[in-house]
């Protein structure tokens, strides 16, 4: 059963990755693109965290007196923990740029931006 779930986790990773990517390439709205990128990013997080699981293991917090206790892998958790916080900061930077684009061009739709910039 866990075997199937293992694959299912990775399948969900692949599906989410591609849903995010689809939004980035088809949606013209810049905020929608950033939402797509967030989904893309979360999919990568899911893949890393899926790798950390050890069967029969528990969260990597050492319990006193526990003998032969298996622990899940702490390393992917550390990498993703910091990546989440960095992710929100970079998303905020992207949103700030979107807000400035709206200020200057009056729109955040890609096709309208292209039309605005077309050489006369």
């Amino acid at each position, binding site marked *: 059963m866990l075997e199937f779930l*293992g694959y299912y986790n990775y399948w969900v990773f692949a599906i989410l990755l591609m849903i995010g990517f689809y939004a980035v390439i088809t949606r013209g709205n810049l905020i929608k693109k950033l939402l797509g990128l967030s989904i893309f990013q979360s999919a990568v997080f899911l893949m890393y965290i899926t790798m950390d699981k050890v069967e029969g293991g528990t969260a990597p917090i050492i319990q006193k007196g526990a003998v032969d206790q298996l622990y899940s892998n702490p390393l992917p958790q550390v990498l993703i923990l910091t990546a989440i916080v960095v992710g929100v900061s970079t998303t905020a930077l992207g949103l700030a740029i979107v807000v400035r684009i709206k200020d200057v061009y009056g729109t955040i739709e890609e096709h309208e931006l292209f039309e605005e910039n077309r050489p006369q």
Partner: protein
Amino acid sequence: MIIVFALFLLTLLVVTAVAVIRTENLFVAVMLMAIFSLLMAANFFILDAADVALTEAAVGAGVTTVIFLGALALTVEHERSRKTGRWLALGVVVSTMLVLIYATFDKPRLGDPTAPVHQHVAPWYLEKTPELIGIPNVVTAVLGSFRGYDTLGEVFVVLAACVGVLFVLSASPPSHRAPTKPGSAKLRHHVVPKVVGRLLIPFIVLFGLYVQFHGEYGPGGGFQAGAIIATALILHALIEGEAAALRSIPRRVLLGMVAAGALLYTLVGIAGIVLGGNFLDYSVLATNPVKGQQIGILAIEAGVGITVCGALLSIFHAFAARD
């Protein structure tokens, strides 16, 4: 039982992601994104990553949503996208997805103890943490000490992103723009969120401090605590208004926090050099190397917490100030 629950959650994740992409109302999309983050956090918890789940719940469902809403208030709430080339895009996406799924059959199955990822440094971390660092939470030990360089870099990325947001948004908005109705102002007129929110804020801050200082023993640490405390203060700003929040914590204090946290982290690293060790080598900070490691981790976690809290609040105020 837990497996059925995990399958359910994962399926729900996909459904939510599709809904985020399909809806044309951006407000709905952002709200669905918050649900997506919460589901993701539950998944992380099932996969034994308690620290990551805590971070995702505080950052993904809390702070990210507020920042997206701040950006929506300044731009538009509905997308007017032109639908061209969807079939080509769908073809590319579906074929890439099928290739990726095909590749997963080569991956070690979930929970396989012999997977390559569990063979390299991870067993060493698990084995040596009680001996070298003497704290139960291995995630905190790896984050603060074994991979301290990495974390220092991440703190500076947060600092740089925060400075970037402040620079980009500091340009004054064009005056011809019609004043937008800020979503945050609406909350002030509702009694229930106001009363409940006021009651909740002290407890959220208290929980944040617990997460900060208990991070060596249980799930927690600077990143989570910074985000949790920032959410409490953002809630305060939403209820009492932007001006009142900035009166209690002025903007320059927030900027000072961002710099001070990163500086504290760097100084702890330099203290290691001064006392005869390497950069970010905490074992020389006290006569007992294990004690030194614990002091070092406590100090750098405090630095991380201060920077993350300050940066998230500065970013929030940068968006809110333009309303």
